[in-house]
């Protein structure tokens, strides 16, 4: 499944969340990552993040797309980051 992760967390934890998420997903913009995950890796990612965030004041959102066939992605302005597997 394709996952888009968006987070808004306290500055003290921003780096921790980014570092953890980067193990699973590709960074595309500040506080936004995306990528293809399996059920198991998705669960692992959620577990890791639950341990870091403070549920009282942080917020992490996952948009889950079954596949990317029926979605369209448009970009205005510069490309900050994204998936590249041939680098």
């Amino acid at each position, binding site marked *: 499944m394709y996952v888009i992760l968006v987070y808004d967390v306290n500055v003290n934890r921003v780096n921790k969340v980014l*570092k953890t998420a*980067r*193990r*699973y*997903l*590709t*960074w595309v913009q500040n506080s936004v990552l995306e*990528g*293809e*995950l*399996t059920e198991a*890796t998705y669960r*692992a*990612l959620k577990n890791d993040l639950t341990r870091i965030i403070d549920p009282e004041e942080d917020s992490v959102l996952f948009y889950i797309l079954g596949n990317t066939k029926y979605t369209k992605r448009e970009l205005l302005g510069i490309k900050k980051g994204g998936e*590249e*597997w*041939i*680098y």
Partner: protein
Amino acid sequence: MQKTLYLFANGRLYRKDNTICVEGEKERKYFPVESIRDIYVFGEVDLNKKFIEFAEDKEIILHFFGYYGNYVGTFYPREHYNSGYIILRQAEHYLDSTKRLDLAKRFVQGAVANIVQVLKYYQNRGKDLESYLYAISLLEESVSSVSSVEELMALEGNIRRYYYESFNTILDDTPFILKNRSKRPPTDPLNALISFGNSLVYTKILTEIYKTHLDPRIGYFHTTNFRRFTLNLDVAEIFKPIYADRVLFTLLNKNVIKEDDFENQGGVFLLKERGRRLYVQEFEDKLRTTFYHRRLKRNVSYQTLIRLELYKIEKHLIGEELYEPFVSRW
């Protein structure tokens, strides 16, 4: 599905924040470890033991290629599916000459069937390949009657010679000609491209072997020796025509890779970086393509197909079911 990372850039490859980081000349890029299956290193990349340890931990295989695109070697992490049982069965099938010849024949039969399939595909598209198909079918009949692996090798070599000759007919709309197959070093662009494609297939299969109990050191058609992995070469016989060669024809017939994507270094032809990138792109697209698998009754990708093939070999070795190689239907 896990992905493959191809590195053409120069720089440093290291472990950073528990993930994979590539530091190039101007930027630093992170790649998600959890979704990486293997890494192909083409660029001049520095890495350290810490990174190797990390790759071992995450079961990521590293394939290295030299400046000329030649295969250098593989970092094959410590076996994680240790199975003494399968190794013994593998050795048993190698040491028993009838069992070995039987398996070797199956690989060759699979390879020839797929070669024929490729030729038929292009014949349906208006290429006159009748004479090659006929010559190959005559040789194919004698595969079952050979009595030693050496004879089988020779026979397979003859079939391949006809097959490679047919490339000229398939590619008659392009400026490329194949006089004869030359490796180490390739002496014309087409040979360079064939070799490049084949080395990708060999390494892909190695990656998949790592995910099974099989030991890549014991092959059947190719003689097991002190030097290299051989089981992946056996399995590659089946997949080379449908993976590497089909990709090659697509790229050349569509004029994606052109004559100036090669450079001539004193009679030795090399595929330049642009050409390699294009080839790798098309190859990966091919592996990601899925099709309906009749027996499993679900869609599988060409990448997974390699692993299914290896499972069939395991079943053959433990005597559960005789191995029937995959033959493309289209």
